[in-house]
């Protein structure tokens, strides 16, 4: 058996069921690793070790007594610190909410508990899920385990870094402009932004009501399916929640991609926002791999990436201003500079521009829906560059917007990012797959086929 901290959720669950391992043994190994590595990686805003160990002991007893709740029973999960856990502060990594103790679990937290997961603690984020890697906040920014001098992506930074470093097998983040998929891309793991409405946002601090999604990060595609099984479902307390649909998101993982029609959106990374040569090569190679597995790959054209990004920015800025205006008026100094600068633009956007962006959004959704009449899944870039150096603010500001994740926040389609290579300087490269509404399982099917055909998911960061 491989080292405990590198086991997938599926492997841990099998070992628990066979009594070869217990949740307490695994959690003890993870806590020791966190103690050893997290002083360098800063993935946790708050580690709830004692409560987690109590939960692991309870899981161990239940599993031993034949009362297993399923494959997440006894599995340690970290939550981005914008997600409520009853009794713990939800700080949003900000001085503004340092004392904001949650009175109840977010729906996603409650669903994880129902599935038997062990809530390990609260994870670093960009301030209010928007700021960026900042050094003027109450907590340090998380760092990339492939090279701690580099940004782990964000805003679900702690989730990406911690899963990639083997501190915990699963994280839950949020994604408004790519914030689950960016850390997955930068840290060489898998991150899914589910279909809008599939996972409840109740108890998750809002950034932009019509763009916010909650999604899982893990080291394998199968683990993402297991996590989605646990957290998906209708929630009447979330106005955007969709009616419950089919479950068992892993049902198509073994089907392969023979005769599946894949639309390759080349213009996003070839002309709209040209990616680095090695990222371009890694994306092209992903298309070749899927073609060699039997998929039918054809080129697809959508509205320009720059326009998708502009629509996302206008909507995000307007909706975020509505959330943050009271604090920006009275406590501007309690924000870090990056968040202050990124949350105030909404004060300068006219109402007509917001509505105009929402009207263009309707056309963009129609354009993507048109594309899905001819293809089953879309393939495109996630990031255009490997992770920037975290203390090089100019490089981070240049590269951070160079990405193709926002289109699927604008449209709400499910989208997954995963590792597709390593750069010359040893940082992960990535690719993205998107699917039809509520066909998250098909996105996972393609990702699983790519994972089986390549070995990137077996690579580990040289963090020790």
């Amino acid at each position, binding site marked *: 058996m491989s080292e405990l901290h590198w086991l997938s959720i599926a492997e841990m669950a099998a070992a628990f069921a066979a009594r070869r391992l217990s949740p307490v043994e695994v959690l003890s190994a993870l806590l020791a690793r966190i103690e050893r590595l997290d002083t360098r990686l800063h993935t946790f805003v708050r580690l709830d070790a004692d409560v987690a160990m109590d939960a692991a002991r309870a899981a161990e007893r239940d599993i031993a007594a034949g009362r297993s709740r399923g494959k997440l029973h006894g599995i340690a999960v970290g939550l981005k610190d914008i997600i409520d856990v009853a009794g713990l502060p939800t700080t949003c990594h900000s001085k503004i909410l340092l004392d904001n103790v949650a009175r109840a679990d977010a729906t996603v937290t409650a669903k994880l508990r129902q599935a038997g997961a062990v809530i390990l603690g609260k994870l670093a984020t960009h301030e209010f899920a928007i700021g960026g890697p900042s050094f003027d906040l109450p907590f340090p920014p998380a760092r990339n385990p492939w090279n701690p001098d580099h940004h782990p992506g964000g805003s679900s930074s702690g989730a990406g870094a911690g899963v990639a470093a083997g501190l915990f097998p699963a994280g839950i983040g949020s994604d408004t402009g790519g914030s689950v998929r960016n850390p997955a891309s930068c840290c060489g793991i898998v991150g899914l932004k589910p279909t809008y409405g599939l996972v409840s946002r109740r108890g998750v601090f809002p950034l932009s009501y019509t763009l916010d999604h909650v999604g899982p990060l893990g080291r394998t595609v199968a683990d993402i399916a297991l996590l989605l099984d646990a957290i998906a479902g209708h929630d009447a307390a979330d106005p955007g929640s969709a009616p419950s649909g089919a479950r068992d998101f892993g049902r198509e993982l073994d089907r392969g991609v023979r005769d599946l029609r894949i639309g390759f959106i080349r213009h996003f990374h070839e002309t709209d926002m040209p990616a680095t040569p090695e990222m371009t090569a890694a994306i092209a190679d992903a298309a070749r791999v899927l073609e060699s597995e039997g998929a039918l790959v054809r080129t697809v054209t959508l509205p320009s990436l720059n326009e998708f990004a502009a629509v996302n*920015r206008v909507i995000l800025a307007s909706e975020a201003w509505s959330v943050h205006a009271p604090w920006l008026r009275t406590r501007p100094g309690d924000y870090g500079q990056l968040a202050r600068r990124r949350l*105030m633009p909404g*004060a*300068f956007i006219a109402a007509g521009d917001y509505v105009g*962006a929402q*009207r263009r959004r*309707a056309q963009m959704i129609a354009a993507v829906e048109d594309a899905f009449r001819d293809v089953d899944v879309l393939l495109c870039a996630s990031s255009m560059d490997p992770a920037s150096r975290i203390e090089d603010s100019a490089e981070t500001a240049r590269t951070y917007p160079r990405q193709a994740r926002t289109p699927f926040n604008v449209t709400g389609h499910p989208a997954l990012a995963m590792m597709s290579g390593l750069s010359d300087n040893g940082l992960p490269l990535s690719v993205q797959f998107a699917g039809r509404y509520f066909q998250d399982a098909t996105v996972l099917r393609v990702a699983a086929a790519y994972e089986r055909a390549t070995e990137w998911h077996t690579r580990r960061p040289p963090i020790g």
Partner: protein
Amino acid sequence: MEHDLVIALAKAAGLEKALTDYPDDVAAAAAQAAETGGAIRVPTDPAIEPWPPMRAGTGR
């Protein structure tokens, strides 16, 4: 966006404190807002409604 307009809009938005303490951040935010909207091809057809459409409740 001209400086006087930025000041006026910031005051109208209630950002006097930010204007006093963080004038560069207010200016940067205004510049970001001005840069963003121009890239969008807003539909000329008045029939194109914003997303998401208004929906009635259940009536129950």
